[in-house]
């Protein structure tokens, strides 16, 4: 779940990052281009100032050609063109609209100013030309003609007066000068062409009129140019640009920050995803390992069991075949002899019949043991306690054991259990003690006694069976309670290898314990404790 979420957030984060970066790429501030644009704006402002100063220089006659003015105009035009064609992409929305509006206003202002400048240049050229004409005229008669004729002197006087009044207008431009200039023109109108020796007064009037007219026009152009909001417009333009630039820079920073955060978040998500995936995989691996280990162990156990079973079967077959073959061969040989020697005396015949019976009994007992152990294995044997006399029980068991082994007197029962009645499973105990005694008798010399000690402790019964027989080798003590296992030192003594197995199972069924101490060649002591209830108290 968390993995999937991490995966999603990595994908979403990556997509958002791509979007952010592409937005940034298309709209971020390109430092170089921005610097170029700003420098153009500043140049625009500078060239605007320059135009004014150049115009004033030209008007004042300090600069006489219009080349640099035309160059400045050209630069202003180009700057506007460039500014219009390269409005930075980082200016967006309302900011861009405002800026472009200001740019259009500035361009419109430039066009109008340019037309004014061109008009001024035109008027100034005419003004200069006519002024030059008047000056040259005035100089000529004064110097040459004046002395020769009174008319020439008069013309010179009139011309000088006109010149004076017109030049005054050129300099002062006040009401008085205007009036005087007009009066001078009127004077010229009244002149008699015939009184003028060399030149038509109408031509003089034309030039004088042009001077007055163009002088006024030039100054009106200059004033109109000066009153143009050029400076304000340019300042506003630069301001709008700077505002846009600043907000774009801030926006850039924010977006760059977001991109960075997105980038790290995406990386983090990817890293976490990978780590979690790896950890999960590792955990899975570990779990699988444990499972495998368990499987291996159980397989091994199974195998051991199989081996054990196979061994058990082997032992069973070996033991039973051996144990059965011996009595069977005894029975067979006795039966054959009885058949062959019918003339044998009765005593001898009975002897053989006894052998046959004993062998059959052996086989029966063996089968019983096998059946018993089968019952125990399959859970057919169970703990069924009932009250019984302990002393009677001991006597019976000892007697039965002695009887079975043919040496009744060898069992020496010890213990103060007369008149003690206990609640226990007599049948199971019979199997236990009977087998132990039978073993003790079988594997000890016939002259050695076997001790059976009985003691009633608190809540439990302790039986001790001790013999001084051959004992149990150390390596066999490990397999004491295995079925069909017999000690390596049993020699020709017959047995099924089931006795101690039966004992162990019977003790376990009663919830007791068994303890074997044995020394090969010195004898064996078996202690059995079973919980009982003393009913005689």
């Amino acid at each position, binding site marked *: 779940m968390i993995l999937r979420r991490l995966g999603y957030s990595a994908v979403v984060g990556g997509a958002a990052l791509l979007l952010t970066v592409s937005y940034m790429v298309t709209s971020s501030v390109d430092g170089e281009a921005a610097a170029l644009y700003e420098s153009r704006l500043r140049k625009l402002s500078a060239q605007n100032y320059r135009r004014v100063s150049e115009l004033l220089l030209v008007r004042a006659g300090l600069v006489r*050609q219009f080349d640099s003015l035309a160059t400045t105009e050209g630069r202003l035009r180009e700057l506007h063109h460039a500014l219009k064609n390269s409005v930075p992409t980082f200016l967006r929305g309302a900011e861009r609209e405002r800026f472009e509006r200001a740019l259009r206003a500035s361009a419109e202002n430039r066009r109008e100013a340019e037309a004014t400048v061109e008009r001024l240049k035109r008027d100034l050229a005419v003004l200069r030309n006519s002024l030059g004409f008047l000056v040259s005229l005035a100089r000529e008669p004064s110097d040459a003609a004046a002395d020769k004729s009174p008319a020439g002197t008069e013309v010179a006087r009139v011309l000088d007066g006109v010149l004076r009044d017109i030049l005054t207008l050129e300099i002062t431009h006040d009401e008085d000068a205007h009036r005087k200039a007009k009066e001078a023109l009127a004077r010229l109108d009244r002149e008699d062409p015939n009184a003028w020796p060399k030149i038509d007064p109408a031509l003089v009037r034309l030039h004088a009129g042009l001077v007055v007219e163009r002088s006024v026009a030039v100054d009106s152009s200059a004033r109109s140019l000066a009153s143009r909001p050029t400076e304000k417009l340019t300042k506003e333009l630069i301001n709008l640009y700077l505002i846009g630039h600043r907000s774009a820079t801030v926006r850039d920073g924010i977006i760059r920050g977001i991109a960075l955060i997105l980038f790290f978040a995406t990386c983090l998500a990817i890293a976490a995803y990978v780590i979690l995936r790896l950890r999960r995989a590792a955990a899975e691996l570990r779990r699988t390992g444990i499972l495998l280990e368990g499987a291996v162990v159980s397989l091994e156990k199974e195998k051991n069991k199989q081996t054990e079973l196979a061994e058990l079967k082997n032992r069973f077959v070996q033991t039973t075949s051996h144990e059965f073959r011996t009595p069977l061969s005894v029975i067979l040989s006795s039966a054959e002899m009885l058949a062959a020697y019918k003339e044998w005396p009765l005593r001898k015949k009975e002897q053989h019949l006894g052998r046959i019976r004993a062998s059959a009994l052996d086989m029966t007992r063996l089968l019983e043991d096998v059946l018993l152990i089968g019952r125990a294995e399959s859970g057919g044997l169970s703990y069924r306690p009932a009250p019984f006399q302990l002393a009677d029980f001991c006597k019976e068991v000892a007697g039965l054991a002695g009887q079975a082994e043919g040496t009744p007197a060898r069992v020496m029962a010890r213990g103060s259990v007369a008149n003690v009645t206990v609640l226990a499973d007599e049948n199971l105990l019979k199997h236990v003690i009977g087998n132990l005694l039978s073993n003790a008798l079988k594997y000890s010399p016939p002259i050695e006694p076997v001790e059976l000690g009985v003691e009633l402790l608190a809540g439990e019964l302790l039986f001790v069976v001790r013999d001084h027989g051959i004992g149990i080798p150390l390596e066999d003590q490990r397999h004491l309670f295995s079925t069909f296992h017999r000690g390596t030192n049993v020699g020709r003594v017959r047995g099924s290898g089931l006795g101690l197995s039966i004992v162990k199972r019977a003790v376990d069924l009663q919830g007791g314990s068994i303890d074997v101490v044995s020394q090969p060649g010195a004898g064996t002591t078996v202690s059995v404790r079973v919980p009982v209830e003393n009913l005689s108290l």
Partner: protein
Amino acid sequence: MNGTARRSIWRVAWWQGGLIAVFLVTLPPGCEQGRLVSEAATYETPDSTLPLSAYTDGMLAPLPERAPAPTPITLLGRRLFFDRLLSEDQKVACADCHVFRMGGTNGQYRTTLPERGPTAVNVPTVFNLAYLFRFAWSGKFDDLGVQIDAAMKLPEAMATTWEATTARIGRSRSYRQAFKRTYADGLNEANVRDALVRYCLSLITPGSRFDEFLRGRVELNALEQSGYRVFREYGCVSCHQGINVGGNMYQKFGIMSDYFGQRKDASKADLGLFNSTGREEDRHVFRVPSLRNVALTAPYFHDGSAKTLEVAVSTMGRVQLGRELDDGQIAALVAFLGTLTGKMPESEAQ
């Protein structure tokens, strides 16, 4: 955590570090905004090394001593200028109207090119355009490129489009290669136009006797000197001024008397700047033409009405200055104007 996981985390950290590095390296510069390969053609600036005192009275100035050295672009432009491939029917080249040895014009009153009608105006010169403040007779174009656009479109001239021209040029392998060598983005309309504009702007005619005189290296003869005096004192120089002896302002044709009223064959072109601005004050207003090489560029005026320089000078004196110039003054002025003839650029025809 086992060894494999730890190694994987290191690997992730490596990748992450690498990504961050790439991110930081590529991000901050933003994207490079496309720059124009050819910025707008810049005007040649006047010779600023010259002391101001050399300008005898500050009204006129000499051209630079030498025309700009050819560049790969202007060489390409020259090839285009002389190539009839540029016109739609491939019968006309720029150089058919702008003949170099004739001062960049062709000496005709109205030019009639093969299978075309006569032009509306006299062909103006193609020289010293770098020092003009406006283009065309009326000065309606403020950019030489736009002037060339008009000539390309004009049915009487090239009668074509940039697109068609570029396609025609593109059929020539050598043009394609030349453009590829010269421009980063190879052959396209903008670059064909740019090459022509730059070539035209490079056509300067330095070395006139008058420029040498301004620099104090030669003397003008007496007639020329007296013409120069009249030129200044009678006020010609009020308008024909600056480095190009004209070409830096507008003026009305007919200040002192009505020039157009006297003529019979009036045409729309006579309205001058009025045709493009519609302002009454611009009626009959023209760009003051440059007088450089004027001795070579007969006939004169936008309408080609003055067949000789003498007629033109006389008309100007009467109409613009309000003076009837006598023959001596006219001769002197013509002699002076002859000193304005410079060295023509090399033409491919040579």
